[in-house]
């Protein structure tokens, strides 16, 4: 693996909701097979940035952008991009667990089924594989037909991660995935993420600075729509180049 291969490359990104600008002239390169934490206070444009990587932003009326986002060198906003294929490559885990009102199995099989997988055997294989990668298999293997809503919050969030993994994505976006979870569930999710980065490129909005410090290879600090600084996590947290980053990390605001 070439260390510096950038999986996602953002240049000159400006993002607007109607007239309100959410992201200002943002440039960022995201390395493959690593975990990037994009952290900062609320309303910094982090969710918007993540949602622009798989074009979920398209769903918000009045949202529009300028600039370029490249995935493996290809502009994901080019007219010939098939959005559903892009979203299979760039999976998303939301800030609250979002099981669909169906069984555990059907939740995980949702993505594969959308892309036309019908064979029971293949579906079962991908469900099992995804659940194992998300470290949930042992918890649920005997009750795959139970409603997903019957799981605990932490299990539900790992279910959502498994659901994304079943798409066989290349990039996984996690938008404050542990915000409502207890420390033990959080630790479990962080542990599975550290395994997953071997196969995937992970971009996470951590729910606090400590989490960012624990799990990331690289870190990016955003404030009010501006990318303040980005670099190797250790450097950003130990020796931030920008005063505002330093103030945020040391808890002076945010």
């Amino acid at each position, binding site marked *: 693996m070439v260390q510096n291969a950038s999986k996602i490359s953002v240049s000159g990104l400006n993002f607007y909701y109607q007239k309100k600008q959410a992201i200002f002239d943002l440039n960022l390169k995201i390395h493959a097979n690593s975990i990037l934490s994009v952290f900062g206070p609320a309303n910094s444009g982090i969710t918007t940035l993540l949602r622009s990587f*798989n074009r*979920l932003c398209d*769903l918000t*009326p009045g949202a529009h952008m300028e600039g370029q986002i490249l995935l493996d060198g290809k502009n994901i906003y080019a007219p010939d991009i098939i959005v*559903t*294929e892009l*979203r*299979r490559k760039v*999976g*998303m885990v*939301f800030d*609250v667990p*979002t099981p*669909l*009102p*169906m*069984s555990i199995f*059907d939740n995980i099989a*949702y*993505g594969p*089924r*959308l*892309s036309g997988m019908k064979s029971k055997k293949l579906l079962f294989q991908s469900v099992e594989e995804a659940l194992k990668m998300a470290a949930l298999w042992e918890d649920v293997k005997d009750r795959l*037909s139970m*409603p997903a809503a019957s799981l605990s919050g932490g299990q539900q969030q790992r279910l959502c991660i498994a*659901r*994304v993994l079943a*798409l066989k994505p290349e990039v996984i976006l996690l938008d404050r995935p542990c915000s409502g979870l207890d420390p033990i569930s959080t630790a479990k999710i962080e542990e599975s993420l550290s395994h997953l980065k071997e196969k995937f490129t992970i971009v996470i909005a951590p729910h606090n600075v400590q989490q960012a410090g624990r799990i990331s290879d690289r870190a990016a600090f955003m404030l009010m729509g501006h990318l303040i600084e980005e670099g190797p996590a250790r450097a950003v947290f130990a020796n931030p180049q920008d005063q505002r980053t330093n103030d945020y990390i040391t808890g002076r605001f945010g």
Partner: protein
Amino acid sequence: MKTNSRAGEKIAKLLIWSTALFVLVVLVAISAYILIKGLPRINWHFLTEIPRNMGRSGGVASTIVGTLLVTAVAIIIAMPFGIGTAFYLAEYTKESMITRIIRFSAESLAGIPSIVYGLFGFIFFVIYLNLGWSILSGGLTLAIMILPTIIRTSEEAILSVPKVYREVSFSLGGTKWQTIIKAVFPSAIRGITNGIILSVGRSVAETAAVIYTAGSALRMPVSLFSPTRTMAVHFYILAREGISLENAYGTAALLIILIFLINVVANMLVNRFIAKGR
């Protein structure tokens, strides 16, 4: 102060409790009265024979068949259009002049007295389209009458499906259609069904809109073009013309039982569908 607010709490509870009790008593009283008067009339002959002597004797078999067929035609026609329109309004379009016009029309249509639908059905289906007094004319008229109800209840059911279900489905690579069918519809189906059950009830119980369009023939219908008399019309005529009050009560009791059965069966079907989906 403290005792005051506690007393207020008790009074409020009592008031609310008594309104609910009052409604329950009225409902039970009416149903019980009709069932007590009507049930003794219901037996095998009443169910299987067609009315004789204008309904003075014989049964009500042809009116049961007529009611079911007219209602079935109405639901089969109104359901796809109603649900389709609801999905259009809720999922496929932004708020615009057109959606406002559709909503306003639906609301206005819902408020029109059913006799007006009857008159329209008579002029348009019976005479202009030359369908005559028939199950088809009656069913089409009822379909127009219940359409607004189905649209509004379905739209509300669709809009009440959490937005995250749609986002999840899109984020997993779903197209709009896949998202609607797999993520939205299963969650909305209970609300949609409630609207349809409501509409079935209204169709079964309707008189004014069908008396001019389906007719009041007592023969057993042989096709959708046959005229027929629904149960509601039958007991209206029996009571109004003073033909047989006993048979009117019998028909009314049967109508109540029919509506009850339709409710139970529809709920069972939905529960089974939902259970299968989980």
